[in-house]
């Protein structure tokens, strides 16, 4: 059993209670009232307006307004419309969706129902990464309960509204988290991202209008509809309302999940909640939002964890995966692990991405071995720069950003490898 988050708020407050994952337990704590309210008392546009006013940003990495995305779904279109719940969670450093699936499947399903009502979708596909076997079992169980109770199917809550939900299991490919890679995979193909436009709202799953949202994004929705947009805006910052579940990993005393308002200072997360660095060592750098997001050096941890502040420091909230590295860490080794991952997971459609990820890894690996030259460091920066904003999907950017961040703040680590012709950090984590 996964440990409940150490700090909880409205999303996770009941996660340690044994009966909460069941439909009965969920309803006992007020579950499905918001869906009933939306479907019986609110017009679809009213639901969309409420979610827009609440300012809910997508929690899958890009931070796009959920209400706005829902409003892109065509209104007078006879074709069936679909929702997709992105439960592929494969961004390294991110492990929050897993607990939302395991303990909060009904909360997510209720959010899906409300979104379905708002967008007129007749079915939802929940795409769960293949390795999440136990979370998938929990979601299947919750779906079966909801069907048995008449909360899903032909006549949702006796209102005549129809909605079907089903689970598709992935099979081990990071790129299937990218929404159009996911759609291809859902259609039984290789998960190679599609060119956009057309966007999923016009041409999504099986060619039909589709909205893709992250597990956590859906999970916030019942709270917004149940308690109102103003209540929701009582958490977080003016531009980034609500809480999120930060996943803290690496060199901290208490790694784990922490549900906190957006805008919580990174230093508070690392030093107060997660207990700081073990053994009295100092922090060297922190990746704030999953591995694709550029690192921040020790001097910049005062930043509030919300995109409007993180962007000023050339990084982003991403999935809220906070990776902490102490003073023993060799940042060239970190770069090596990061670039290996992206080289391995590139789907290979775009030259810049396929070749760029390979070159980056090769150069970094050479520098780490002590066989690099100073000009290699410039070539590395140049390759990363040429990968940005030129490809079919944002994977190439996600591969380039963390390397650019490491070069921006820890160039000296790279230079020292070249000068000493070896790794100058013998006490660093093993490669």
């Amino acid at each position: 059993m996964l440990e409940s988050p150490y700090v909880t708020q409205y999303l996770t407050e009941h996660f340690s209670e044994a009966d909460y994952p069941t439909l009965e337990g969920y309803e006992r704590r007020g579950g499905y009232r918001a869906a009933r309210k939306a479907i019986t008392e609110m017009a679809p546009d009213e639901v969309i307006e409420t979610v827009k006013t609440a300012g809910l940003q997508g929690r899958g990495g890009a931070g796009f307004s959920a209400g706005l995305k829902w409003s892109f779904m065509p209104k007078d279109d006879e074709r069936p419309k679909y929702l997709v719940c992105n439960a592929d969670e494969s961004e390294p450093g991110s492990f929050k969706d897993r607990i939302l699936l395991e303990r909060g499947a009904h909360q997510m399903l209720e959010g899906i129902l409300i979104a379905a009502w708002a967008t007129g979708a007749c079915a939802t596909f929940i795409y769960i990464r293949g390795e999440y076997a136990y979370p998938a079992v929990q979601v299947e169980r919750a779906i079966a309960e909801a069907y048995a109770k008449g909360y899903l199917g032909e006549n949702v809550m006796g209102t005549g509204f129809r909605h079907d939900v089903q689970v598709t299991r992935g099979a081990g490919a990071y790129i299937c988290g990218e929404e159009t890679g996911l759609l291809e995979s859902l259609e039984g193909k290789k998960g190679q991202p599609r060119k956009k436009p057309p966007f999923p709202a016009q041409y999504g799953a099986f060619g039909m209008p589709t909205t893709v949202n992250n597990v956590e994004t859906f999970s916030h929705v019942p709270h917004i509809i149940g308690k109102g947009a103003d209540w929701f805006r009582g958490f977080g910052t003016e531009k980034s309302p609500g809480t999120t579940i930060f996943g803290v990993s690496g060199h901290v005393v208490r790694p784990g999940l922490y549900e906190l308002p957006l805008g919580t200072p990174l230093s508070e997360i690392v030093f107060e909640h997660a207990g700081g660095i073990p053994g009295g060592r100092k922090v060297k750098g922190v990746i704030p939002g999953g591995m694709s997001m550029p690192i921040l050096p020790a001097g910049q941890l005062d930043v509030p964890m919300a995109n409007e502040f993180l962007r000023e420091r050339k990084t982003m909230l991403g999935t809220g995966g906070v990776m902490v590295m102490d003073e023993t860490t060799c940042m060239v080794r970190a770069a090596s692990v990061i670039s290996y991952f992206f080289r391995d997971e590139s789907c290979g459609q775009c030259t810049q991405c396929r070749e760029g990820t390979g070159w980056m890894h090769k150069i970094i690996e050479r520098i780490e071995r002590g066989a690099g030259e100073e000009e290699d460091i410039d070539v590395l920066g140049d390759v990363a720069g040429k990968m940005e904003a030129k490809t079919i999907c944002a994977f190439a950017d996600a591969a380039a950003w963390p390397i650019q961040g490491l070069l921006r703040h820890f160039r000296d680590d790279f230079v020292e490898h070249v000068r000493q012709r070896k790794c100058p950090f013998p006490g660093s984590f093993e490669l």
Partner: protein
Amino acid sequence: MVISDETRSKIEEAISKYPQKRGALLPAIHLVQADCGHVSKECAAELAEIFEILPIQVMEVVSFYNMFFDSPQAKHHVYVCTNLPCSLRGSRSLLSQLESHLGVTAPGATEDGRIFLGHEECLGACGYAPMMRVDDEYHEDLDVEKAKQILDSLGK
């Protein structure tokens, strides 16, 4: 026929849930693997027939995904996550000690075909590192002794 009648009827059921037949291909491959361990040429040909596509289109999908296999596999699959959060907490030394414990070089299988040992990218267990996946199960907050015990308890 290599795909059993039981698996065939499960595949038909999966197909009925998708707006297009091919949507059920990943679920079908999962089902075939649960039954046969891997997707052989014969399995691919039969799947192709069911889905009205070419065998090569089935194999293309099999080869794209890390969890699908086109050749016979060891009884148990063990993967140690070596992505950054796990590496920071010693997963690579865990992996190398498990390699010596089993007498294999990862990625590779023991001679008796009992265990395949490999590394994997992030498995969504970053706060409970180091960790390994054994078939469908996660084992987290590991130390070397605990991990060895888990491997020793795996049957043939």
